[in-house]
């Protein structure tokens, strides 16, 4: 079946609300899923992968465990980027707004691809981002120029072993400034794959024009979650609001 972007976003917000997310968190989480799905990053598959965890665990947020002038470490405590991605990006961009480039490591977190939407949104405030994380035996690198609405998405072989559940984010006024300041940290092996911006654009245009294809079982799952935020209707509650 097909759903519209607005319809999907509304359903996801209520579903995340049912899972205990607070306002703000459920707006951001819904936006992350929709962005990934509409741009060809398999947002639904990634959502399915995390739903079981979210359904059995009260929302967990990351904890700031270390910081200096330019660098932060956040402990994700096993949670999803859906819940801690926004805080990580806000923390690092606050630092850059006050001065030079900054770096952040978000450890012990899952669903790291969702961070792309947060980086794109933050980039609209004239900031650049480079993020990377380990995916199986490779490393995913995402670069977002200031004001860009699409990222550069590349997969490389690893030169050094990267922690399998960490996400590294650098922020600065330009990609060049980040690459200059963090040159040592941004060395990767051979380019394995890219996901072109044209493919992302085509995917998005098709989503808007034709709607978004969603598996009926996932839609039913979301409907069941949404039902949790609804209150049983009674004659009393029905009264007075129309005829």
């Amino acid at each position: 079946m097909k759903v519209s972007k607005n319809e999907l976003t509304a359903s996801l917000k209520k579903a995340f609300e049912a899972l205990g997310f607070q306002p703000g968190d459920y707006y951001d989480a819904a936006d992350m899923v929709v962005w990934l799905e509409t741009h060809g990053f398999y947002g639904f598959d990634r959502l399915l992968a995390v739903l079981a965890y979210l359904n059995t665990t009260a929302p967990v947020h990351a904890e700031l465990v270390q910081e200096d002038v330019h660098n932060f470490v956040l402990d994700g405590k096993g949670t999803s980027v859906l819940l801690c991605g926004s805080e990580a990006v806000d923390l690092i961009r606050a630092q850059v707004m006050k001065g030079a480039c900054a770096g952040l490591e978000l450890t012990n977190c899952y669903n790291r691809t969702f961070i792309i939407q947060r980086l794109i949104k933050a980039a609209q405030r004239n900031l650049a981002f480079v993020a990377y994380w380990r995916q199986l035996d490779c490393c995913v690198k995402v670069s977002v120029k200031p004001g860009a609405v699409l990222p550069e998405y590349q997969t490389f072989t690893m030169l050094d072993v990267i922690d399998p559940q960490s996400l590294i984010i650098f922020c600065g006024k330009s990609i060049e400034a980040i690459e200059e300041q963090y040159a040592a940290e941004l060395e990767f092996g051979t380019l394995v794959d890219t996901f072109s911006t044209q493919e992302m654009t085509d995917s998005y245009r098709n989503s808007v024009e034709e709607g978004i294809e969603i598996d009926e079982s996932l839609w039913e799952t979301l409907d069941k979650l949404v039902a949790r935020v609804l209150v049983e209707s009674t004659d009393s509650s029905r009264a007075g609001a129309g005829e």
Partner: protein
Amino acid sequence: MHIPSSLDQADSGVNRLPMRPAGQVMQLERLGSFHQSRLSFMRTLVRRMVVENWQINSPVFDLDEHGYGTVVYQIEAKYGTFSYVVFSHYLDPERRNDRVIADQWDLTMALCEGTVDTKQLEFLRNNVPKQEAGRVDSRVLVLSRANRSARLFDYVVNELADGCQPDVDAIADVGYLYRTTAAYGSGKLGMADWEKVWTKHRDFARPFAAEMFTCFMLRHFSMQQADYLASQRSPTKAVALHEDIKRYIGIGNSTGLGMAPFLINHPLLINQWIEMRETALATAVATSEIGVDLETLLRLDTSVERVIQHLNEIVTADERQSKANIQVAKELQLLHVWLQEESTALAISHYVWASLTQYAEQHWLIETQEVINTLLIELYPELVDGLEDHMWVEESYQITPEMSVAELLEVVEEKYDWALAIDFTQYESMGAFWYRSDEKMEPRLGQTNIDMGMEKEMPLGIGRRVRECYDLIYSYNQSYPDQDVAHFVVRNPTYSGIVARIQTMAESHYGDIRENLVHSDVLPIHLLRCKLSFFGVSKFDPRSRLWVRNTMFQGAPLISDFGKLFFDDWQFPIKPTLTSG
């Protein structure tokens, strides 16, 4: 999209418009006293259709002798072709219900892009009548339904079949042949996203333009169906409805709590609508700084007379609204007499509108003030109509993480002083809560500690959330005086949403609606009326504090008027005096 307003200009100190302050405009009672204006979506749509001479015909008109069946209208607008599909069904009068929770209607309709072929028509026939229980696709822009006026429809058809025109007073009592009970767009139920409408269909690339057009076409169908049924019943004797009566027939509308959360959940959009309306008003007032000429004063007087008649013709059982209508009419009568007596002298003495608005604020009801404001905007179409292109804004709420916590405290104290002034230790201040019912997710208002569902409360109590956030920030600032908002949010992640709202809305001109929406005595009807005024409805008839009946497009031109000389003056409709024809 955002255009500079007087408040932006204030920084440069040039051409500052006399904008009203947020503390005055954003009071809920005032918002609930708004009337339609030239910027209302129905007015904008009608101007566009008439001037661009949209061509509308009905390639399929397949109704039986009872008026049941299918009609497809084809619309050739300026930039594209659209189809409006109507399914007319038998409805047991016992099942006629205007609530969102209804599941059957007299009419169901869909506005589609392009032309509709046999296959698509069959798809629509299988889904549109089910409304929320069906699914459509991205070729559909709007889905809607309507119920017949039990009082008026049969009467009008009988009169026409007898060769007579219906009594205008009978029309005035009701105002419509059908009531629409919902018009869904923006991607609901599989329809086209607003983004698609906005980027692909320029004819409807303004807020609620497609939804308003759906109601306009319903009005056209309702009168065409009445004419058709009369001619079926008495082929030789029947007459067609007089065109002056047709213009006076609108579409009924019942609006309940379903509309209320929209205003709270889209504060940037509401801010934009209000800012444009206030810019229009400020433009009108500023234009008069060199004095108002006699012709303009007399035009205002003509409009005032019309509004007085309009108010006197409104039928409402609501005591508060009825008293208000009487009082507003009385106060406008004073204005009318004054204009009659003083206009010539006022023109000579370079009278300015600021004197009138100031007098109204000091002596008259808020409702009267807002009628006058609407009429002032009407006087300067060439200066204000361009604002209609700026009624939409892309909504994005984002934290400004580098802001210091101390600065955030100041922002709350300055922009949300109204929220901090509420005493939330009083039971009444948190005596109500909003929730979604399991009947089609209909929003409802419950009483705290009395009704069930408090644990599933919708976060519409913005004032209370701001207060809680402020208290926490205050405490945090004591412990970490040099820290920024990013650190505050990392340590208090459940407040990220309200912090983003505070910081985003603080940058807007008018900000949030200044009302405690979880107070025991909250009047949601003000929220409904505010939004409906931007739609462009008239004749507000509150049925309780939770829902309101009103009339859409009453007085508007007909399709047969498209392309003809057009005076955009159909607001505040009054009973027609029939001319021949």
